[in-house]
């Protein structure tokens, strides 16, 4: 009976035998494979309830030993300076047992091997979740962290029989980490981010099997950003949150440097979960550009953006741009409006109201507007307009319909709504591509066409707040702002708001100088 005390004793005895194999005979291959065969023949590796109990008890024994060793060492510690280092001996032994089982598993087809791995992962996740529920703030993440580190170093370096073997191991980890995400187990957050960003895991998930691992990495990054969002939105960066925030920046910088295409292709998803107040973090993502691309210096005099070869190319976007429109049953209406070639103001006034969230949601979202819906509406509409513009023979009349929508929203939305709307446009000002080109035109068009200074001021604010933060700054943002301040047709320097206070006046002068 896998639930009985006898069973627990048997498991404990088996674990002791394994310890002997590792410590005494130096874990040579023969001893390991014989031990694994013995477990297999006694029916402990079938992947049934007995298997589940077997690994759960092993894990409990390993974690208990680690924690008790930490308590002993902390008891012995004279001063806080002496780092309490728990003993990972039994955790390492347990990790090695799992590795050996997968390496010497008697059934050769990899499917049963990876079924067993996913079972072991599931047991581990459930154990951590239960431990977190029981212990809450006193959960000790370090034993579990050590266990996963062992597995990342051993299992992810299993020489791939085919890439598939590696990929299945990597996705088993990705699914486990998703189940252990900070919103589910906040007391595991720091260990979680260190595991997810580990150099034996993240780069492999991004490179093994082409881009097949990218959706998993995107999901893990969204898990992290969703946890941080309430703290970042209110700029509450106290101690632990600030450490987690800086850790996130480091991970994003590694992605920006080594895997920029990944950030490029999922920018839309990440802009949905990064609060609009988090300007620099969002700039990191929007500044990424494909490695094979050379960006002309934005302050090059007489830079002809329209003549850049890449400017007519559509960027690769792996996010589901119309998801929020579909979720709010708005996609068909928007499509109908865009193909209708007429200015249906009723539709637009209803549209404006649909961008609001219910008052109960407003407090949790920290805004009265459905930001992902605004982002989705702006980008989806822009993509339709670009497509229509590119289709031969189009008079561009439909494109005027899109322009009319953007103009209507810039005038009719209130300050908060317009800020979020302008942000959605500014989020498309990235590396040279036809979205950057189109939305740069839209931003300047709204500035030029608006007869209300408040709109022009807000457009300036949205651009400026992204420029005055520390680097990096997206290329498309720079070329748009330079055009705005250099091209006399926008009459930028005539506006009173650039002189509304001495420090603002100085700021504009310094920004103008830095933009050449």
């Amino acid at each position, binding site marked *: 009976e896998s639930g009985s005390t006898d069973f627990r004793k048997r498991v404990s005895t088996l674990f002791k035998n394994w310890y002997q194999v590792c410590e005494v005979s130096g874990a040579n291959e023969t001893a390991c494979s014989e031990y694994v065969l013995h477990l297999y023949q006694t029916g402990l590796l079938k992947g049934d309830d007995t298997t589940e109990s077997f690994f759960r008890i092993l894990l409990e024994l390993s974690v208990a030993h680690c924690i008790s060793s930490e308590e002993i060492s902390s008891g012995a510690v004279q001063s806080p300076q002496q780092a309490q280092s728990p003993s990972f001996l039994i955790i390492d032994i347990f990790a090695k047992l799992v590795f050996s089982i997968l390496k010497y598993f008697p059934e050769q087809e990899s499917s049963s091997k990876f079924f067993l791995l996913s079972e072991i992962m599931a047991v581990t996740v459930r154990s951590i979740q239960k431990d977190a529920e029981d212990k809450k703030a006193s959960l000790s993440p370090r034993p579990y962290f050590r266990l996963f580190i062992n597995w990342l170093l051993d299992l992810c*370096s299993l020489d791939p029989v085919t890439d598939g073997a590696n990929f299945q191991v990597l996705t088993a980890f990705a699914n486990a980490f998703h189940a252990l995400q900070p919103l589910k187990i906040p007391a595991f957050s720091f260990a979680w981010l260190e595991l997810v960003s580990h*150099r034996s895991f993240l*780069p492999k998930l991004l490179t093994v099997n082409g881009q097949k691992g990218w959706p998993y990495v995107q999901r893990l990054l969204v898990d992290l950003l969703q946890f941080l969002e309430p703290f970042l939105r209110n700029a509450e960066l106290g101690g632990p949150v600030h450490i987690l925030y800086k850790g*996130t*920046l*480091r991970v994003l*910088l*590694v992605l920006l*440097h*080594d895997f920029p295409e990944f950030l490029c292709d999922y920018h839309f998803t990440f802009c949905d979960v990064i609060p609009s107040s988090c300007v620099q973090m969002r700039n990191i993502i929007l500044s990424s550009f494909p490695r094979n691309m050379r960006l002309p210096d934005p302050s090059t005099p007489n830079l002809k953006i329209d003549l850049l070869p890449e400017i007519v190319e559509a960027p690769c976007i792996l996010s589901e741009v119309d998801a929020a429109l579909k979720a709010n049953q708005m996609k068909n209406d928007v499509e109908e409006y865009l193909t209708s070639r007429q200015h249906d103001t009723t539709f637009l006034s209803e549209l404006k109201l649909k961008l609001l969230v219910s008052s109960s949601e407003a407090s949790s979202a920290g805004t009265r507007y459905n930001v992902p819906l605004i982002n989705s509406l702006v980008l989806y509409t822009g993509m339709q307009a670009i497509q229509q513009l590119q289709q031969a023979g189009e008079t561009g009349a439909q494109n005027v319909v899109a322009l009319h929508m953007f103009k209507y929203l810039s005038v009719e939305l209130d300050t908060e709504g317009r800020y979020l709307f302008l942000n959605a446009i500014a989020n498309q000002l990235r590396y040279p591509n036809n979205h950057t080109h189109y939305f740069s035109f839209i931003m300047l068009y709204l500035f030029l066409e608006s007869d209300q200074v408040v709109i022009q001021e807000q457009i300036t604010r949205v651009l400026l707040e992204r420029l005055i933060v520390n680097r990096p700054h997206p290329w498309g943002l720079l070329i748009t702002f330079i055009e705005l301040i250099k091209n006399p047709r926008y009459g930028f320097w005539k506006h009173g708001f650039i002189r509304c206070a001495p420090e603002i006046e100085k700021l504009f002068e310094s920004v103008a100088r830095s933009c050449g």
Partner: protein
Amino acid sequence: LGIDLTSLGLNLNSTENLHKTFASPWSNEPSKDDPEFSVPQCYYAK
């Protein structure tokens, strides 16, 4: 205004990949461990 990202201990101008020596999200220095490497089977000369 964000922070000076070059102060996070990553050599953003490096021509090498950063992930090979990425120590941890909390660390200001590259990892001291040997980075991951793998040598092809044919390097094992008889």
